[in-house]
């Protein structure tokens, strides 16, 4: 296997894990089937475009991303999503409508055309004898460190336990003093912001356009189906299997075979192992 293929695998797996993280929180923890997840990735990807249009310095891309995604997620949670906790099918329909609305709004503002932005880190670095974009290497390392930190936080923080308690038994959670409305809103906004952050990070490597979120949504769901809901380990395993299979087959055969294999895997998992490799409601 060539060094470039290995690095491509690392890139695809790490970025899919990052994209799927927000869905893992919103779907895995809050049981909201967020069909607008990809649109939050898309809005995040537009942050560098907005920053550039406003003539702001590049370091403001992250604040612009959070200021754009956060309030949208907060308003949606307060007005629509808060009524849909525990109603998975209703949440699917509602967020599907939200996704269409967000796409249309972005299209109205920026048009249908593709946008592109330059990576903040230019050039290549030599890794395992292969020249690879420095930006991608930085992102892979950053995501890896971020997930290690998140795992550490998740196993030690009381907030994670409180979210599990709220999802499992909301009435009892209220009885022990958990403000479930505030915690749900916080978790939803955090999940959407991680999706926006993923979009911001991916922006220099993709074509930015209003429909771009759909592919990320589908692959994120596949990763969660295969890996299982409710744990970071499951998210990592699912991303590894989905992105790994697609990238490897895409390289040795064709993208079509890669996508076909991913679809087949997801169907097999839904059929034979519906809880995924590492399902955990905890």
């Amino acid at each position, binding site marked *: 296997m060539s060094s470039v293929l290995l690095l491509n695998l690392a890139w695809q797996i790490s970025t899919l894990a990052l994209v799927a993280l927000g869905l893992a929180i919103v779907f895995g923890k809050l049981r909201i089937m967020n069909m607008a997840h990809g649109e939050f990735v898309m809005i995040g990807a537009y942050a560098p475009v907005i920053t550039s249009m406003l003539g702001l310095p590049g370091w403001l891309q992250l604040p612009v991303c959070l200021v754009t995604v956060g309030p949208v997620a907060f308003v949606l949670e307060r007005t629509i999503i808060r009524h849909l906790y525990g109603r998975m099918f209703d949440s699917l329909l509602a967020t599907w409508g939200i996704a269409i609305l967000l796409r249309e709004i972005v299209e109205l503002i920026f048009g249908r055309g593709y946008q592109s932005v330059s990576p903040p880190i230019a050039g290549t670095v030599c890794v395992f004898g292969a020249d690879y974009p420095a930006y991608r290497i930085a992102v892979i390392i950053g995501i890896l460190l971020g997930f290690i930190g998140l795992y550490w936080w998740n196993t030690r923080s009381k907030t994670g*336990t409180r979210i599990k*308690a709220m999802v*499992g*038994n909301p009435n009892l959670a*209220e*009885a*022990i003093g958990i403000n479930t409305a505030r915690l749900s809103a916080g978790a939803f906004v955090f999940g959407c912001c991680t999706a926006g952050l993923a979009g911001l990070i991916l922006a220099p490597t993709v074509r930015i356009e209003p429909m771009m979120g759909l592919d990320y949504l589908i692959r994120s769901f596949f990763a969660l189906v295969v890996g299982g809901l409710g744990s970071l380990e499951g998210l990592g395993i699912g991303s590894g299997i989905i992105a790994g299979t697609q990238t490897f087959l895409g390289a040795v055969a064709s993208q079509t075979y890669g996508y076909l294999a991913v679809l087949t895997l997801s169907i097999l998992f839904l059929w034979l192992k519906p809880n995924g490799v590492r399902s955990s409601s905890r």
Partner: protein
Amino acid sequence: MTALLEIEGLTGGYQDTNVLFEISVEIEAGSLLGVLGRNGVGKTTLARLVQGEIKASQGDIRFDGQPMGNQPAHARRHMGVGYMPQTAMVFDDLTVQENLSLGSSGKPPDRYFDLFPRLAERLKQPAGTMSGGERKILSFVRTMIEDTKLIILDEPTEGVQPENINHMADCLRERVAEGAGVLLCEQNLNLLSDVADWFLGLDSGRVTMTGSGNMTTRKDLNAVLSL
């Protein structure tokens, strides 16, 4: 002396159907009110109305001199109201340890593990895998160790072995001696006559009997349950 909990003219139920009608009662700090009655007379509804899971359609609830009727359940907990529900009383997916640590700031005193050693043996086990009686004990201990002034318990002994019911009675007496007020909805007359300072009998959502622990006979209590 102001009562810890003052309930006046409380009417409430589920959706548009009232189950409790014009209940008035007080609980002082350092006393235990036993609420008894057959199944379906409104004991759980009274517990839920005071805890905040459901809203009253009429009447006032004051806690520590402050109006509490409009507060959500989580705010009432922060005011000092603890609650053990009759059903769904633990977080099934969390471990015993996580269940115990969620509502309180520290680990339970060793005394609770001495009284209920099964909990200590199963700290790492998900609560949902325990028997019904064990889950009752877990929920009871969680409620006992919370830093609360008023403790609401809804049928805590259902499915619990007699030996452990005696330990529960000891814990209740201790918390009352420390100054907590307790609202205990229960059908176990042995426990009630053992620990209650006051009784409130319910039938069809209305008060049918009140009395002090000293003056109320076993015959009076049996009469409430046979209504």
